[in-house]
């Protein structure tokens, strides 16, 4: 289901696997070098919860939840994500209908279209992107969402809803009620 791209390989000639039997023995040593990001290709659709411990690029469709607590998620230009996302960093170039939790950063690129809420200490929106929802950069809310250390943990991470988000429509209300976010836990204080 996952299409690994940009894998490191010792095969500088790009030889086909069909010729592996004739390759030097060194070729068959276990690959110890770290892979780069896993990719969900444009033709792939996943319904359900997705978690992992490596960087992920989505060019296909994902409906459900995504948890990459210490890794990065990139929703590519062709990607369509209907899910709440928890990751170290999140980059959106495609469409997302759901809430984004980035313990380090959330970036919406100019081609990105996000309908949902963002909780992250650093948020950037490129000129030309489309965003509707809320952005919370309040450190107390972030700490509550990711645990006091600021690092997502299995104990304190937000409880991601498995309910399928509503269809994305520009003028619909973001589903802020879906996650027990810090914003619900923090009482508003009017400074007016």
């Amino acid at each position, binding site marked *: 289901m996952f299409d690994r791209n940009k894998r490191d390989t010792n095969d500088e000639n790009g030889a086909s696997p069909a010729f592996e039997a004739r390759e030097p023995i060194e070729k068959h040593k276990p690959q110890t070098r770290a892979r780069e990001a896993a990719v969900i290709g444009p033709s792939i659709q996943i319904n359900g919860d997705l978690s992992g411990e490596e960087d992920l690029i989505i060019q296909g469709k994902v409906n459900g939840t995504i948890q990459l607590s210490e890794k990065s998620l990139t929703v590519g230009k062709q990607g369509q994500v209907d899910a709440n996302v928890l990751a170290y960093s999140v980059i959106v170039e495609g469409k997302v209908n759901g809430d984004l939790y980035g313990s380090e950063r959330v970036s919406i690129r100019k081609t990105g279209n996000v309908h949902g809420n963002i909780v992250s200490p650093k948020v950037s929106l490129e000129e030309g992107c489309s965003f509707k929802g*809320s*952005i919370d*950069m309040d450190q107390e809310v972030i700490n509550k969402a990711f645990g006091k250390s600021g690092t997502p943990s299995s104990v304190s991470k937000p409880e991601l809803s498995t309910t399928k988000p509503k269809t994305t429509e520009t003028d619909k209300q973001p589903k802020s009620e879906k996650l027990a976010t810090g914003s619900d836990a923090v009482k508003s*204080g009017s400074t*007016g």
Partner: protein
Amino acid sequence: MTLVSSASFKQSTSHGGDEPFSSPLFREVAAQFDDTTRHVILELGSASSGILALLQGKRCRLLVANAAHTLSALNEESQDAESHSQVVSTLIFDAGTEKVDTVLCWDLLNYLSLPLMKIFTSRLSRIMAPGGRVHAYIHSAHATMPQYPQRYSLHGDDHVLRLDRDPDVRKTPRYSFGDLEKHAVGLRVDRSMLLRNGVQEYLLRMKQE
């Protein structure tokens, strides 16, 4: 209420000008955003990098309605007040269990008919905190204004810049202080200032119950 007029009004034909401009009332509003008190801000237009930069490290939550164009288009739709009210409620979502402390209403009020302004401000007053504020820009010095609401962003620490360059224009209703007092439901004009580029800057406050 204090009504302040800039002494040296600079004629401009670009409806708000293309130069960054000083916005004294917004500066006062922004001074309230800090790292000690939770503050909820509603941006009725689209979010800009300037606002995000301002809020970085502050105890702030920014709601982005991205609704200016849709709201301005409601004037042209022949719906009854109830239908408009439902649409406005959908467009301007609330902050959940929180209340909105500050509304950024940059370049929108002029694009609403007076009946629609009542519906719009009535919705705001339902989601705002007591004592909450609305910061607004209104084209008031020119006979025409851009065809659609324009986007603005912070430029540097204390200036505002118009981002859009809409060449098409329409007649400006030139809403006055009195119009706002009469048609802004639940709000009163706290301060107003005519800026050098012909834009009137307003600070409105929630009326006390």
